[in-house]
């Protein structure tokens, strides 16, 4: 084998390994998740600083939400099936919590910032609950926050129509008042279960 071929081969192997590592880093794997009485927890560090725009057009960062529990989930308004169900679930969690719900801020972060401008988000989220906050931003800002929450999302085009859909991971994240992700909930977790978990954390 020529020396240059060998170097090329080694570089290719390194590249493939690096891409595989990146792909693994980008999403939460089942192995990373364990279930305990306080919901699903993960050893993977998630969350942190972000810079986004809320549905009223104001710039917001993670600091705006410190001091309250935060329920974070990712979605997009073009999605007619799953996202409305998830939003309705979050509204039900707030109902279940009753007065305790004032200590919880629900946030939907769009993974479709191209279409989900603040006014679009605003009218959409208020269909579900007047306390839900919608966040959008530039494509770069959304990519950054999605990476921090290990959210996978991808635009999907279909030859059949001119519109596009998005594939995306569907966790709901519970963030504590200090800004740390403390629990995950899978799509379909009953709202009463989410509310119970939040109550347990509140009691500490």
């Amino acid at each position: 084998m020529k020396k240059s071929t060998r170097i090329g081969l080694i570089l290719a192997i390194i590249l493939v390994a690096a891409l595989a590592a990146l792909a693994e880093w980008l999403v939460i794997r089942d192995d990373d998740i364990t279930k305990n009485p306080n919901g699903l927890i993960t050893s993977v560090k998630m969350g942190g600083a972000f810079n986004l725009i809320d549905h009223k057009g104001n710039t917001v960062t993670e600091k705006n939400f410190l001091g309250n529990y935060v329920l974070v989930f990712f979605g997009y308004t073009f999605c007619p099936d799953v996202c409305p169900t998830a939003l309705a679930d979050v509204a039900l969690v707030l109902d279940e919590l009753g007065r305790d719900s004032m200590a919880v801020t629900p946030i939907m972060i769009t993974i479709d910032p191209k279409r989900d401008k603040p006014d679009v988000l605003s009218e959409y989220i208020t269909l579900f609950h007047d306390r839900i906050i919608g966040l959008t931003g530039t494509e770069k800002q959304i990519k950054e926050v999605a990476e921090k929450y290990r959210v996978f999302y991808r635009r999907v085009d279909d030859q059949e129509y001119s519109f596009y859909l998005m594939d995306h991971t569907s966790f709901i994240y519970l963030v504590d008042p200090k800004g740390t992700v403390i629990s995950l909930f899978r799509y379909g977790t009953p709202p009463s279960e989410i509310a119970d978990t939040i109550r347990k954390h509140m009691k500490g």
Partner: protein
Amino acid sequence: MFLKILFSFIMIAFIHSSAVASEFQLGNLTISDPWSRATSSHQMSGVVYLRILNSGNQTDRLIKAVSIHSEKVTLHDMILDGDIMKMQSIKNGVEIPANSEVELKPGAKHIMLMGLKRRLDRGQTVSVTLHFQHAGMTEIKALVFDAGSRGPKGKNLKGNMPGNNSKNGHKSH
């Protein structure tokens, strides 16, 4: 006077029941409880769910749907690939096996209205023409429920019924 009131009650009942007919018959197929979800004015997509009972001895397929309310209607399935949600077009139609019922419901197979022409409001109906491989075609009218409704049989959501304002801050339009 009394007769007049009675008559108007009967008329209201009649109009109401005809407006929200929940069963549509097409040959051996019975399409029940079609329903949809309210949208915002910016939303470009809507959804229709229903149940299809095939009481015949031959498998049928829902192969196509069209509606005056949107540019395009597609048959979609929500698939969970690990924790990633994917929407997939159902290329060969929705199979309705003989002597069985198939339900299109949230988080599963659904009819998607793409490129909504106008906002869908709670209480209105959405006309959709369904095309079946064997039974032919028929127009159904889906009743629009709240944006986050689980449908006519939904137990979880308060203020589920059209016209019933919930305390959830659901906006009445």
